[in-house]
């Protein structure tokens, strides 16, 4: 069926290493956050406008980071900026959802720091930022 990939000097042809995992996880979050927010917005936007708008914002952020990650290294600074925005979003929205619960009659992706998603939304930007800082300071790692 598929021929084995011809090995180059590096031994790996298309390998992006750990970045692949980041892209996959961000891709899954982009997909699920988009789906969730669209269903929420289309069903009954007026029920929880703040929560649903923030779901949309989270979805847009995940899509942007995914695209930025796919566009290899060249845009590392853009990716870092987007991850910082994402982290800020999770922290602000998470705090807001605990301090002002009346704004959130229904859940949002970043509510309670992403507890609905096993706190992965909080950890993901931290891991991505760590990965980005390691790759830019030491060159691509494997």
């Amino acid at each position: 069926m598929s021929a084995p990939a011809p090995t180059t000097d590096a031994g790996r042809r298309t390998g992006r290493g750990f970045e692949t995992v980041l892209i996959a996880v961000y891709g899954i979050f982009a997909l699920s956050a988009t789906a969730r927010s669209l269903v929420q917005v289309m069903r009954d936007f007026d029920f929880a406008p703040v929560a649903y708008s923030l779901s949309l914002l989270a979805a847009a952020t995940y899509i942007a980071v995914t695209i930025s990650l796919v566009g290899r290294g060249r845009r590392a600074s853009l990716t870092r900026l987007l991850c910082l925005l994402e982290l800020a979003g999770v922290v602000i929205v998470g705090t807001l959802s605990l301090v002002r619960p009346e704004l959130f009659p229904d859940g949002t992706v970043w509510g309670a720091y992403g507890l609905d998603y096993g706190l992965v939304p909080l950890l993901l930007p931290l891991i991505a930022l760590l990965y980005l800082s390691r790759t830019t300071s030491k060159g691509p790692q494997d």
Partner: protein
Amino acid sequence: MTVLGIVVAAVCALVALLGLYYTVRDLSADLVLLGATALLALVWLVLGIALGLRDLGGGHPAPERVTLYGYLLTALLMAVGGGWVGIFERSRWGSLVITVCAVVSAVLLMRTHQIWPGGFA
């Protein structure tokens, strides 16, 4: 349907653990892991068809039909996409992506059970 749900959960666990083993041992996905991933896609497809048929038959109209089919489609896409990444990312990280997909699809399975506690029994 309960049996089918258990089968899907078992295959999710199998693929997740297998992928984790490959990641720890620094192995790229081979035909065993890819085969298990294909099996995961297959059992999700069977579950999706079974639920769809029952929905069409009017047995248990799903209260949140859009979400149900969204979850089913996402799970199927993730199994196929995870395998695809496993083929092209020839390192341990390709195996880890397969693990992530299996874990997320297990979560999706749990969510479907939470949303339709009666519909699955």
